[in-house]
């Protein structure tokens, strides 16, 4: 099989960027990615390296938040790997049971690494990341409104 070790070892900065977009792709919905893909223009042909499949991830926690690991429980995950004729490989790993989501994430992961499609796709990712950030800010603002502002009541004469 074609594995990533055939490619030149990416710089750590490249890895950081890839980690970031993979996180954004995982948090987006399949519908959003479907629409975003349409904006990316003509695309290369991809074939499956590993067909979309559903499985589980055992989620771990830490005792006392910072101590030894323990198994909390499982969550569903979908994954998919694709490659194109140039040997460009993309992987998708997303929470939930939407195979199409995993496939789209894999296609985007491959495109984002390519020279010709990279820049267009990065804009798409930036938009999605922005939307995710706004949603989180909105939620945080609602939480902030429930913050307790203590005031001390002075009792007695002095």
């Amino acid at each position, binding site marked *: 099989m074609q594995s990533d070790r055939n490619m030149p070892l990416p710089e750590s900065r490249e890895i950081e960027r890839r980690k970031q977009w993979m996180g954004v792709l995982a948090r987006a919905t399949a519908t959003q990615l479907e629409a975003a893909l349409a904006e990316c223009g003509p695309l290369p042909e991809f074939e499956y390296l590993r067909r979309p499949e559903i499985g589980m991830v055992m989620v771990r926690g830490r005792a006392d938040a910072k101590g030894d690991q323990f198994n909390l*429980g*499982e969550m569903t995950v979908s994954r998919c790997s694709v490659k194109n004729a140039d040997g460009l490989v993309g992987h998708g790993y997303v929470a939930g049971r939407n195979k199409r989501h995993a496939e789209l994430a894999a296609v985007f992961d491959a495109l984002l690494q390519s020279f010709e499609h990279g820049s267009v796709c990065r804009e798409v990712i930036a938009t999605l990341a922005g939307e995710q950030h706004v949603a989180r800010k909105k939620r945080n603002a609602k939480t902030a409104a429930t913050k307790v502002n203590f005031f001390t009541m002075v009792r007695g004469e002095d």
Partner: protein
Amino acid sequence: MYVAVKGGEKAIENAHKLMGEERRGDPSVPELGVDQILQQMRLAVDRVMCEGALYDPPLAALAIKQAAGDLVEAIFLLRAYRTTLPRLYASRPVDTTTMHVRRRVSATFKDIPGGQLLGPTFDYTHRLLDFSLAAESQSSIAVATESEPEGPMSRVMDLLGDEGLIEIPTPNDQQHVSDITHDPISFPVKRDARLQSLARGDEGFLLALGYSSQRGFGNNHPFAGEIRMGEVAVSIVPDELGFEVEIGDITVSECEMVTSFKGNKEELPRFTSGYGLSFGYNERKVMAMSIVDRSLQARELGEDVSAPCQDEEFVLYHSDNVEAQGFVQHLKLPHYVDFQADLVMLRSMREEIMKQDTHREKSGEEVA
């Protein structure tokens, strides 16, 4: 003893059809959608995911619909579904210190850095039935403020740890992590296996145990150091990538209980602690879990193991509601032959005793 009994097939089939009809209820009332359960019965969904030990909100909602709202049955359905999927990865441990907090309260420090964030809660409600909810269109709009909390919040346990008042855990990530879904529990149990059992344990059972501890059966005087609820990222390290990627966020609840101190000639006294973590928003569950986790540390802390909540065999063997309901409910299966044996035995015992009595009476008469 069990004996195969035939002849119930038609009855079973019809009983299931009847259950289906009962579940649907009056057809003139619109059918409940899974999305409605997901959105409007979220805490039920969270409990099913937590005790079903599978995080997948739409699946849990479906299970609740199928079980007609019987949550233990829904948990059973989720556990059964879980066995059909391959496990592909173990995640990196979720980092609750970077949680996107939606609720955070501490009962130990009023002015904790970051503040007391009540979030969505039933606390401080009057528990008066709100009849306006019975009317159909009802909505409440949350208030948002400009200043929002961002970034990791400092933790109560860190504040205590910095002063040496509580032990700061030092993780050993090289050691094997127990998995009770693979290897049966053997005693004495490591804390990781205990926490995994408690995390999927029945809320009612853990609540009762925690309560029993508070009332004096193995009391360890707990304070809710910090309770949090919010979203954490889950990441995995696929072999083909060799680096960590996030697959999404999950909602979790967490409770850290500060409990009675220990110390001896060599060591200065310190607080001890208990920990609770669960999928979804299950505050009562994680609070109970943290008390029970602390109680189960009795052996390691050199305390007497005298109360039920301190007995790991008692707690861990009985906390799983799927196992418990299975064994209790199997009693309704045919035990005809078994019971017949008891009947025969009892009748013959009685006969024997009665025979002896009549004999004694007769011989008594003779003497008289």
